[in-house]
């Protein structure tokens, strides 16, 4: 049945191209683990700063949070570049662009929202807002990469909502959301996708 064989091969080719065009698959579990560790380090430094300086620590802590974000992005790019090299595809493939956009829109809105909270002194909502917007961004990005990212996003949103009830426990929720959840995701991803 050459017609059938041909048809099945065509189907495989179509599926591959659809996936390549729409999904970013150069994601590494090591990124998750490293980001989690960086986040845990960051929250430890932040809580030390706040204990030592109290209210005056807001701007240094904001600066620290931004530094943590830049480090996390850098680490994710580093490990993704390694995976891309292994898969012999360029890092900046069409799927990567889709993921970048999917993340950028909710994160920009969230960043602006957190800036406003900070300016108004509504600090109790900062960590919940970060977790919720980050979770929505991940959930959105999950459409353009491995689907487990959606579950991680959902987890962050739930943690963010829970954190709204206990603003004083922000260190705990930050550590759970940005630390533990990333590490757990990273380990699962690494085991499932071998990288």
């Amino acid at each position, binding site marked *: *049945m050459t*017609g*059938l064989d041909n*048809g*099945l091969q*065509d*189907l495989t*080719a*179509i*599926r*591959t*191209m*659809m996936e*390549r*065009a*729409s999904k970013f698959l150069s994601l590494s579990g090591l990124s998750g683990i490293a980001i989690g560790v960086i986040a845990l380090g960051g929250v430890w430094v932040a809580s030390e700063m706040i204990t030592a300086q109290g209210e005056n620590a807001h701007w240094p802590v904001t600066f620290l949070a931004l530094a943590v974000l830049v480090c996390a992005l850098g680490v994710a790019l580093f490990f993704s570049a390694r995976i891309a090299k292994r898969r012999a*595809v*360029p890092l900046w*493939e*069409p799927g990567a662009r*889709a993921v970048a956009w999917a993340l950028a829109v909710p994160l920009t809105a969230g960043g602006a929202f957190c800036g406003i909270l900070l300016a108004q002194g509504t600090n109790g909502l900062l960590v919940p807002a970060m977790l919720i917007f980050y979770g929505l961004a991940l959930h959105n990005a999950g459409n353009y990469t491995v689907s487990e990212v959606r579950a991680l996003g959902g987890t962050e949103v739930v943690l963010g909502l829970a954190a709204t009830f206990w603003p004083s426990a922000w260190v705990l929720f930050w550590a759970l959301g940005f630390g533990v959840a990333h590490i757990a995701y990273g380990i699962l991803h690494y085991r499932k996708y071998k990288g």
Partner: protein
Amino acid sequence: MKLGVGKLNRAFENRVRLGIMAALAVREDLEFTGLKQMLEVTDGNLASHMTVLEQLRFVRVRKDFVGRKPRTRYTMTETGRKAFGEHLDALERIIRAGQ
């Protein structure tokens, strides 16, 4: 049982053209370089297949500049989408008949 082979579009017999259509079916527009990377073909190869698809009016080309670099982007036309859909239906029939 009558096979729907007649409905397979000959324009999509070629895997590169089939791949172009599959990619454009899921992404609104793709750049020449992006498509080239995904399909793992040479510039000339992709360009010649694109010309065929353009002539059939299955894809639309847009050329512009990003800074000084020329950029070529492709989108699928309604005609292209319809033709590709019918081709997939025909493929489905063949596979079903072969089961």
